[in-house]
């Protein structure tokens, strides 16, 4: 068995994981679009036990002015965890991990957003993790895409996030916190389903070339499942109650 010593049985003899899931099953995902009063776009996402609130403002004026681009709008992302979101209380000040994740998510969304029409402005995406349980960056990215669409920011596609990984020598979909701690690999993916492009990709752990290829396939499949939920959340807000 790989990974750190643990009392948790990551995979039992029937192929069932520690939280009752099968190896190619994602956790339960629910998304609600348009939940905040002041933000121009917003979304609340529960991805397993992850609870994340995303707000989007913009396009709007950039301060300080020297940060603006005269040719295009810029995208700024902030991924932030509340002190009470994790097991041991976290200091509210941004950690290096949050800074890195903010950048990675920004670069995952950049290929999707079309900001040429808004030079000298910024679109600000704020992702607040209220409760964390492994895979927060994929969940935050997923919520951010919905919030951007809700705000009316032109996009080439939504970006859906889901992680694949390896635990107990088996390739699994959607790694939760326990599996991340004790498992052998964690591969978060951000994927544009209609353009079929991967825009977020990281790896923690060891995978041989065959496992890597399979993991990507599994992860993309997970992203496609998540995309259906993103779609549903926008349809629920904008297209129900319509006699069209």
């Amino acid at each position: 068995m790989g990974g750190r010593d643990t009392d948790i049985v990551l995979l039992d003899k029937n192929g069932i994981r520690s939280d009752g899931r099968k190896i190619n099953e994602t956790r339960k995902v629910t998304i609600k679009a348009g939940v905040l009063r002041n933000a121009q776009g917003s979304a609340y996402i529960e991805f397993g036990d992850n609870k994340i609130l995303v707000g989007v403002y913009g396009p709007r004026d950039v301060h300080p002015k020297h940060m603006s681009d005269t040719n295009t709008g810029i995208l700024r992302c902030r991924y932030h965890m509340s002190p009470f979101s994790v097991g041991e209380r976290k200091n509210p000040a941004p950690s290096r991990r949050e800074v890195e994740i903010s950048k990675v998510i920004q670069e995952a969304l950049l290929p999707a957003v079309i900001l040429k029409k808004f030079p000298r402005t910024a679109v600000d995406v704020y992702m607040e993790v209220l409760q964390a349980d492994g895979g927060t960056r994929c969940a935050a990215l997923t919520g951010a895409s919905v919030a951007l669409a809700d705000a009316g920011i032109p996009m080439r596609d939504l970006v859906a996030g889901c992680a694949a990984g390896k635990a107990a020598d088996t390739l699994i979909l959607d790694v939760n916190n326990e599996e991340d701690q004790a498992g052998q690999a964690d591969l978060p993916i951000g994927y544009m389903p209609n353009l079929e492009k991967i825009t977020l990709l990281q790896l923690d752990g060891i995978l041989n070339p065959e496992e890597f290829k399979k993991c990507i396939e599994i992860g993309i499949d997970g992203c496609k499942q998540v995309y259906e939920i993103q779609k549903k959340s926008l349809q629920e807000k904008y297209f129900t109650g319509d006699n069209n």
Partner: protein
Amino acid sequence: MSNDKKRHVIPGEIIVTGKYRAEQNTVLQDDKIMATVIGLSDIHDESVRVIPLTGGYYPKDDDMVIGKIVSHSAMSWEVDINSCYAGMLPASDVFGRGFSSSSNDLQSKLANGDLIIARIVNADKTRDPLLTISGRELGKIDSGELVNISPSKVPRLIGKRGSMIQMIENGTHAQITIGQNGLLVVSCEDPDGLLKAIRAIELVEEKAHVANLTDQVSEMLESKSD
């Protein structure tokens, strides 16, 4: 001339494939035309566009907009026009060409918080849109109630040749000044008329893309106010 393929779309969804022109809120990817915003796709004469259900106001030349003064420099006022760009109202527009700067003069004419109805003179992307309030029906707004609706619903509120807005004004005896940027000012001597007019506006915003909206609004206006 077919107008019948209206479909709900979200960003990234493929509307059609083949020889079509990609118009507003769409993007061409290989031979696929995809939506870039949430809205209704509309195929008309080989061109494809999406009527948006989201999004803010994008300044256009000659648009009438309602704005709020938020600050000023020695030479101009900065105006919040509910858009991604702030509007700029030069002091010379109010004081005349021979104006010489003095901060106090600006403050006395238009203070922070004052509302104006203005026209966009120059919506050039490289600078903030230029505004003017010299002209008939333009200037400072002294009374009424400010209402905020999604800019994408303004055309529906105005209606074909003004039919919807006139119906609301006639049915309530209110005067409604509409800014293309989604800000409106509603005045009415009768407080019940004011309330009804605002409710009618909210109804249009809520049901902008429902087929029998005109009937629903007309019904609402005729019912006794509670």
